[in-house]
């Protein structure tokens, strides 16, 4: 997969998943405290979200950051827009903004389509999870 194909796959994954978290490790086994805290917030809100582990290939992080213009991991996207990293997610969770954001979007979203989005090929395998 070339860098451009990878960037397109990331972009597709962000478009196809209403709530998607790019993180280090998996929701079951986060590999970094910031990713773990962000997953904890999503689970506390009881929202379903897709996740992508950026660790298997350094190019995932490189292309993600080039696309989002955001340097750090994790990165949470809702409705195709970057919400932020751990600090922003924590702050928005604590003041209720995040619940409003994902709640509103989740109710407006089309039912999840189980057919493979483009991102399921190759390196990017967003896992749809029910928290």
């Amino acid at each position: 997969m070339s860098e451009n194909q990878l960037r397109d796959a990331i972009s597709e994954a962000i478009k196809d998943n209403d709530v998607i978290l790019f993180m280090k490790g998996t929701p079951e086994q986060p590999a970094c405290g910031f990713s773990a805290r962000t997953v904890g917030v999503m689970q506390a809100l009881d929202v379903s979200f897709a996740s992508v582990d950026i660790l298997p290939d350094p190019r995932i992080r490189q292309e993600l950051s080039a696309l989002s213009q955001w340097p750090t991991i994790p990165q949470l996207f809702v409705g195709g827009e970057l919400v932020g990293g751990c600090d922003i997610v924590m702050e928005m969770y604590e003041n209720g903004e995040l619940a409003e954001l994902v709640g509103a979007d989740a109710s407006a979203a089309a039912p999840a389509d189980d057919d493979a989005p483009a991102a399921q090929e190759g390196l990017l395998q967003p896992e749809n999870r029910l928290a």
Partner: protein
Amino acid sequence: MPSADDIKQRIEAALPEASAEVEGADGVHFQAVVTSPAFAGKTRVAQHRMVMDVFAGELGGSIHAMALTTKTPS
């Protein structure tokens, strides 16, 4: 190596009517709370970018990390 006060002054000089509280004694890791009316109506990501842009090229280099909280004046 910048002091917390250098960081504070640069933020306040760059952003309209901003006030910043900055901590960070080691010269490479900082914590900043920035308040500016220029943040109004912007997403958190956009607010953080406005502050991060002040240090473009230095973050990740001479400044290792900045934990940031942004606020609009109440």
